[in-house]
């Protein structure tokens, strides 16, 4: 049934027509359609946790990734690779932190594993290799430790600086 479309509605009222197969990359939407018996023709699927701008981005990502093979089961004990983000995804995620933040929440709510993984990896890459002060500058974080606490925590983590 190629070409079947579904209507997705953001929490601020915008509706988007999307191919069912693209929309089903969201396990949440897939469940709504398959298990909850929502009809594909007429109904609008409301997404109360996603606004229009973010939904637009999500649909853009899902459209580009529509032919991706299903992501493999997470092997918890395998070393995770941070450098395998495709260049398309890297460009797609060249957004401000606020947008990236909302994308993580949306990917989580819509249960789109590929998008969730790549957005979280992107944030991880912003942390990796940085000193605590650099991390604070990166995310605009206030250092709320007392000097004594800071000293103690530094000692607690001294071992990781041994080369």
């Amino acid at each position, binding site marked *: 049934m190629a070409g079947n479309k579904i209507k997705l509605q953001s929490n*601020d009222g915008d509706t988007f027509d999307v191919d069912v197969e693209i929309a089903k990359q969201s396990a949440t939407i897939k469940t709504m359609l398959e298990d909850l018996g929502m009809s594909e023709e007429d109904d609008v699927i409301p997404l109360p946790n996603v606004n229009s701008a973010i939904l637009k981005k999500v649909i853009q990502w899902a459209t580009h990734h529509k032919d991706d093979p299903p992501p493999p089961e997470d092997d918890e004990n395998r070393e995770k690779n941070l450098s395998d983000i495709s260049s398309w995804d890297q460009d797609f995620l060249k957004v401000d932190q606020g947008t990236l933040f909302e994308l993580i929440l949306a990917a989580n709510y819509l249960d789109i594993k590929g998008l969730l993984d790549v957005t*979280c990896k992107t944030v991880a890459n912003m942390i990796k290799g940085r000193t605590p002060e650099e991390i604070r500058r990166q995310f605009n974080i*206030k250092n709320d430790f007392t000097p004594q606490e800071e000293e103690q925590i530094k000692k607690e983590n001294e071992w990781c600086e041994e080369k």
Partner: protein
Amino acid sequence: MSSESVGILSSPDRSSSPSLIDQLTQNSCTATQISTDYPGEILQQIRSPGKRQLTIEESIVTTNDSKRICNSNLREQCDSKSTAIITSSPSPTSSNNTDSISFPPSSPLSSEVINWLDIFLAMSNEDRTRATEALIRTCSTNILQLNQIKNQIEPYFQRDFIRDLPRELALHVLKYLPANDVARASRTCRSWYETCNDILLWKRICQRKMIPLKKLRTIFDEAIENEWKRSYACHKHLEYVWQHEQLVPEPVVLRGHEDFVITCLQFDGKRIVSGSDDNTLKIWSVATGKCDQTLIGHNGGVWCSEMTDELIVSGSTDRTIRVWNIGTGVCQHILYGHTSTVRCLALHGDIVVSGSRDATVRVWNIRTGERLHMLSGHTAAVRCVCYNGKYVVSGAYDHTIRVWLPDQEKCVHTLEGHTNRVYSLVFDGKHIVSGSLDCMIRVWDVEQGTCIHQLTGHLSLTSGMQLRGN
């Protein structure tokens, strides 16, 4: 432009205090839309669920870096400016966005600035856009001023992911980081510290590198509470010390059994128990390096020992086994029965199994001092013994290994294959590994009683072995 998207940029402090723009538009109650020509859309902030809001105190606390405005400060700055500006507009509390908190205003704005802002307030959206564009263009010749504007705006585009995301998503991000980065990230601020110390996060880090949980005492016990993080730190430190050997401190020499052979050692992380041919055992403290107790009583050299938290069991050439209280040094039981040197012991719960030069294996209860069983069958000195609660496994100078069910005093297997004395055994419940004077190591299946492997390679007596994994 359609009115569907509410494109107001609210403060990064996601307890949803309004931005400066918000406050200024209080008069007009309609939603404003800011032009989205800006690369990267300006979006309505959705509050992330389940995170605690900043308390009033926290949002008042001043930042360390006076030049950098932090998330928690913006609210103070916004509100203080707005109270100076808004004269006739409804009070902030009428908006469904604000909490009613009053802040002392920072240095008051001049009347010119106030007028200027009033005019801005009165403009239409389109005019405002053009006005800000013109303002920025004007400032562009002054790089310092431009920088200032950039620094003012920048925080609004930053998010504290680890603090603001629901915990499982913050951990999903941290999962991708190697241990060093997690450790460094924990030094950022309190909320990051708490999340970065998640026990499962560190458990996974350890499991990826096959680092087991360290149960014995470690040098990081005081510093690190998280037991998996502690295990990782120990492992890393150990690797470092091995690679930079000059940093290993001078070994402490414990003197005591002068001129006599030390025949056996036990170690529980804080105490060392040494047995000697001088008929005594000594208990040493690892922390002080001093001998805390000397156990006197045997009438012959001590050749084997075992320890628990409270007791030490020792076997001697005087043919007895003694059970001592570690704390007091008092001998609680003397176990008589063997007719020659007690050469090896195996402890399991309250049961100790002894092997002797008299070729027998005996089973005793160390709490009651009762003699429980005698296992006869070997035809030469029993040199090594193991017990896991079910099977007793003994190796002897008669070249064989015997597997016993002690309660039935029955020998269920006699494992033949070695061509010389058996000197050492390890047993994990399923497999027996034996080392012998014949230079071979054999692996046996305890249930079948068959030899599954033979390992050659050593050129002489194999006398000490340990099992790790498989």
